[in-house]
C-alpha cells in the first residue's frame, strides 16, 4: 500500500468512525473508562 493510499484509507476510516462514535453511548463508555482509571489511581 502506498503512503497516499494509507493516508486516504485512514481519513476515510476516521470519517466512518467519527460520524457514529461521538454520541451519547460513546460518552458513556468514555465515562466508564475514566471512572475505572480514577478508581485505579485511588487504590
Amino acid at each position, binding site marked *: *500500500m502506498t503512503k497516499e493510499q*494509507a*493516508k486516504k*484509507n*485512514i*481519513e*476515510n*476510516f*476516521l*470519517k*466512518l*468512525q467519527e*460520524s*457514529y462514535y461521538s*454520541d*451519547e*453511548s*460513546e460518552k*458513556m*463508555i468514555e465515562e*466508564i*473508562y475514566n*471512572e*475505572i*482509571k480514577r478508581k485505579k489511581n485511588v487504590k
Partner: protein
Amino acid sequence: MTIEERREIEKKEVKKYLEYFKNNKYEENNKEAISLLLNTLTKVFKLELDNMELGLKFNEEKPYDIENNDIGLYFLSQGYNEKEAKRFGDNRRQVGGFVCDFEGKPHIDLDINYLLEGLKVEDEDIRLENAQHILFSLLHEMRHYKQYLMTRYCISSREAMTFSKDYAVNCFINKFYENNYKDSAIENDANESASKLFQEILGEDDFFSQANTLYKSKFNTSKYRYSALDENGKPINVIGYKEEITDHLVEFLVCKEKIKNIFDIAPILLKEYNEDFTRKTTSEVISNMKSELNFLSRIDFLEEDKKQKLIRDSKEMYYDIIFRTFECITEEEYDKVIREFGENEIIELIEEMIDSFEERREMQLDLINKMFRIRTKTGNIIPVEFASGKSYKELLIDSEQEKYQLEDFYYGKEDFLYVIKDCICRDMDIDEQNR
C-alpha cells in the same frame, strides 16, 4: 452542501412521508403512496451516502444501476422474505437486508410488499410506527454498508476486526449468524447507529436515546454460542464472549479449513494470519505493531486527538492478537522474542496488555450492570445482579404487573420472563438445551 444542510432536507422529506402515512393508509395500487415511499427512501439513502463524505457514487434516478453506483438500492417485489424465512427456519419477516457477496458490488434489498403491508394498517399510531420502522431499517442496513467499508480500509482497530471476524464466521459457519442474530455484534452496532441517526432526523426522542445505550452495551458484552463435537464425538454447545468464540472459529477456518477467499472477505485478518493459512508468530505481530505505531506517531495530516485515537485503536487490536499468540507460544519462540525485543520491553508490553484487558473487563461488567438494572413501569427500581444470587422468585413476584421494563425497554410478561431467563442463563453459562 454541508451535513447540516443535507440533514435539513432529510428532515423535511421524512416529515412529509410520516405525515402522509399517519393520515392515509395505503390502498392497493395507490401510485402516489408508492412513489412517496420509494422517493423518500431513495432520497434518505442518497443523503446519508453523501453525509459519509467518501465521494460514493449513487444515482437517485437509477438506484438499481450497480454498474455505475458504488452501492445499489433494490426494491424487491417478491422473494426477499421467502428467502429469509427459509434461512432462519421460521416465519421471520423483515424490511430488508444488506447483501454483499464480496465479489460483486454490495446492495441493500428492501421488500416492497412487506413495506406496503405495514402501511395498510387501520390504526394510525401503528401505521406511523411502521412507517418509522421502515426508515429505521433503511438506516440499519446502511450501517452494515459502513461496517463493510470499515473492514476494507484495513486500519487496525478492534471494531474493524470484530466486524471482519463476524462477517467471516457468518459466511462460513453454517447457521452461526441465524443462531446468534440477537447478540450479533454487527446487528447491535447497526441498531445503535440507526437509533442515533433516527434521533437526529426525527429530533430528540427518549426511547431512541435509551435504545442507543442498550445496543452499545450489548455490542460490548454479548456472548455467542455454537454447536460442536467434543473429543468423544458428543455434540456440545459452546458459549463465550463474542471475541473468544469468533477468534476460535476464525482460527479454525483459516488454519484448519484453509478457506481460500476468507482474506477477500476479511482482509484485516492478514494482520493476524499469513496468506499461507498459518498464524503469524509473536515476533512478527510485535514487529508489525511497532512499525505501525511508529508510522501512526509520525502522521502529520491529522489533529493530535485523532492520531491518539488511531494509536489507541491499533494497540487494542494488536494486544488481542499478541495475547492469542502467547496462548500457544513455545519455549523456543518465547526465547526468540526475548532475544529480539529484550526482556524489559516484553515485560512492559505484557503489563500494558494486562492493564488494557482489565479496563475492558471492568467496562464490560459495568455495562452489564447498566443493562440489567431492572425497574417496573411505576418506577420502583429493582437492581438485579444476576451473578450474585438474587432469587428468581423475587423477579417472578414483580412480574405480576402487566408491563415490565428492562433498561428502558417495555416487555409483556412472557417476553420479559424470556429475556430475564435468557440473561440469567447466559450469565451462568447455562447452554440452551439445559435451560
